[in-house]
């Protein structure tokens, strides 16, 4: 865990968890990113948290997506054929 001096200059863990997506999305300024990574290097708790957020996104990406129902597909194809004949 970060020591007292580091918390004064850098982020506290409670702030890091709020900034996780800013970091993962590449939305930080270079200065913020440096402070954030400095904290991660010193704090196993926040590194684990960030890994959990990444894992959560990865699990979500492994879910199946909504597939086009057959009747919708058929109606769309009919509409396309009408359009193509115009």
């Amino acid at each position, binding site marked *: *865990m*970060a*020591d*007292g001096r580091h*918390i004064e200059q850098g982020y*506290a*863990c*409670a*702030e890091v*968890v*709020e900034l*996780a*997506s*800013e970091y993962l*999305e*590449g*939305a930080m300024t270079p200065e913020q990113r440096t402070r954030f990574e400095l904290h991660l290097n010193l*704090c*196993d*708790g*926040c590194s*684990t*948290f960030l*890994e*959990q*957020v990444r*894992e*959560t*996104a990865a*699990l*979500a*990406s*492994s*879910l199946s*997506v*909504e*597939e*086009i*129902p057959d009747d*919708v*597909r058929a*109606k*769309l*194809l009919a*509409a*396309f*054929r009408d*359009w*193509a004949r115009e």
Partner: protein
Amino acid sequence: MVIGPAAGERAAEEDAVLVARLRGREERAFEEATSTFYPAMFAVARAYVRSGSDAEEVVQDAWLGVLKGLERFEGRSRLRTWVLQIVANIARDRAVREARSLPFSSLEDDAGEPAVEPERFRGPDEPYPGGWRSFPTDWATLPEERLLARETLDLVRRAIDELPLAQRTVITLRDVVGCAADEVSEALGVSEGNQRVLLHRARARVRARLERHLDG
């Protein structure tokens, strides 16, 4: 996600090929496009309308609009981004006609919610204020079959289904479907910053559900 110039050019080229095939009335190209774009189109439509079948209708109407407007598509954005904006316009008109309140118009509820319960951190008068009381568990230490179990994925699905509408829409588009950040914020008409807030709240809630499940 940051796309390099090479990837961006490749994407633009892919779009140009698909648009040319569609303009050439190639049925196979239309079938490919309707299948590939469907998950994102459905998720955008679903954010505004009452039911899944209403969302299906919006997707169909949107394709009619896409075919009609295809000659006007100039390739300034990705084809799917343009298509999603058409979906959102049609779905919004429908929501307004049905006097439904529009999601994404106020983010106050979403912005105020902490990603992790405040009790998990040390108070201002304790040593290391704002530091973890006890660290989260490293999921890498769990047996892999636990993390990838059907049960875990079902829980992720349920946790997403139970999110507030705006959060559910953003995490579905970003993480489940795999859309880019700018695509989502353009289609939904929210700033990139607000899009990130919604994504963060959504991931934080799903993470918390996973944590309770995996630690238990």
